[in-house]
């Protein structure tokens, strides 16, 4: 009985929860039926062994029950996944190294061990985040079946010649290099913003007082917005992943990219709509150290509004461009 339980367990352990009970019941009855068919006067154990051998490798049986294979990231996307992962993790490594490097040069602490520990901790959490988000972005693309010709062909009931994917022309092809640079830049920039926003600063060289650093952001407030920064990263990277996988502009690619663009623009607007993220002493400090005569003090609100407008305009331009490419390509067919 023990062998049978182990066999049934080996088959059902990897199957979906709701089928497990049913399959377990039918397997037990089946094994029982097969045992009854075993003539001869061998010991019970020997019969069980014989029956189980006849049923074969439980992994194979489980595979039969499972039917088609399912993937988190399928073979057709795996190479792109590894490529993106390398770029993102490379950029994170570079970003964190530079962030911590610059940070430590200008910090008062000169304890090498403490800096190194900080560096490792920041690196570990940033690499882990990068890995997780890239994987999630690809899993999302896999689930939604973004432009996977191989999959589409099996799904289509009647296949016609018109379904053959067009060989991308120059204009409709999405440049891989562009996406890769985009991923590199986004990851790099956001890693620094996430790990060490204090290094976005104005560094003023002065003969008498040495280097003065005036941070642009209020790091404490910005830290509270880390989830937003992560959100911007996810939507931006997802967009590039979709483009990488698709390889050419179609209506579907354009739509998905537009939605992701809209998401990242909205999150960026949300982040910058809080004026508290700016260092409140930035302008005063700048004025003091640069001897600026004209009034900067009242322009804070205006600057912020200007930045929001730029972000909004950039987002809209991107969405319009992307949709234009998708629609133009679709109509030309």
């Amino acid at each position, binding site marked *: 009985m023990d062998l049978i339980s182990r066999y049934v367990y080996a088959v059902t352990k990897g199957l979906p929860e709701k089928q497990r009970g049913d399959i377990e*019941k039918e397997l037990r*009855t089946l094994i029982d039926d097969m045992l009854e068919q075993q003539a001869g006067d061998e010991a019970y154990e020997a019969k069980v062994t014989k029956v189980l051998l006849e*049923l*074969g490798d439980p992994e194979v*049986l489980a595979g*039969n029950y499972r039917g088609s294979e399912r993937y988190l990231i399928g073979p057709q996307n795996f190479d792109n996944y590894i490529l993106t992962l390398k770029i993102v993790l490379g950029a994170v490594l570079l970003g964190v190294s530079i962030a911590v490097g610059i940070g430590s040069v200008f910090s008062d602490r000169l304890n090498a061990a403490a800096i190194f520990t900080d560096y490792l901790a920041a690196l570990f959490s940033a690499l882990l985040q990068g890995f997780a988000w890239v994987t999630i972005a690809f899993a999302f693309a896999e689930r939604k079946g973004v432009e996977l010709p191989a999959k589409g062909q099996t799904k289509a009931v009647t296949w016609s010649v018109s379904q053959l994917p067009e060989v991308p022309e120059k204009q409709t092809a999405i440049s891989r290099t562009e996406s890769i640079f985009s991923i590199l830049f986004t990851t790099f920039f956001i890693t620094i913003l996430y790990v060490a926003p204090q290094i976005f600063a104005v560094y003023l060289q002065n003969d008498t007082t040495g280097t003065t650093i005036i941070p642009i952001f209020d790091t404490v407030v910005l830290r509270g917005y880390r989830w937003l920064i992560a959100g911007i990263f996810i939507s931006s990277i997802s967009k590039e992943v979709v483009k990488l996988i698709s390889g050419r502009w179609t209506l579907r690619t354009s739509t998905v990219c537009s939605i992701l663009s809209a998401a990242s623009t909205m999150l960026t607007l949300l982040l910058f709509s809080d004026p508290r993220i700016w260092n409140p002493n930035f302008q005063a400090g700048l004025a003091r150290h640069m001897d600026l005569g004209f009034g900067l003090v009242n322009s804070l609100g205006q600057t912020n509004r200007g930045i929001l407008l730029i972000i909004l305009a950039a987002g809209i331009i991107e969405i319009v461009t992307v949709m234009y490419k998708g629609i133009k390509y679709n109509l030309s067919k």
Partner: protein
Amino acid sequence: MSTEKLDALFEGLVLELRRGTIVLSVMSQLKSPQYGYSLVVSLEEKGITVDAGTLYPLLRRLEGQGLLESRWDVESTKPRKYYQLSEAGKEIYERLCCQWFGIAENMNKLINSEDVR
């Protein structure tokens, strides 16, 4: 080519040839309700060998596709799941049979007993 390699190749091709006929074989026996193992045995008696490891998942798949209906019989000593053709299954079965006769006829025209030494 060595005999073993030739044999292995042959086995693979036979398996492939049989695979296409399994669904039809199974459906042909399910006009009245049967449970998995009784199906294995009755098919075996008629010269069609299907392992239980292939048949059980297949029955589930056909049920999922709506071609079979099932019910658990819990009154007997062992719980058994009985399968039977559904209405859609009956229709598909008839159409598959027509296909089969067509294929068999054409195949018989293509190959003939003189091909076999």
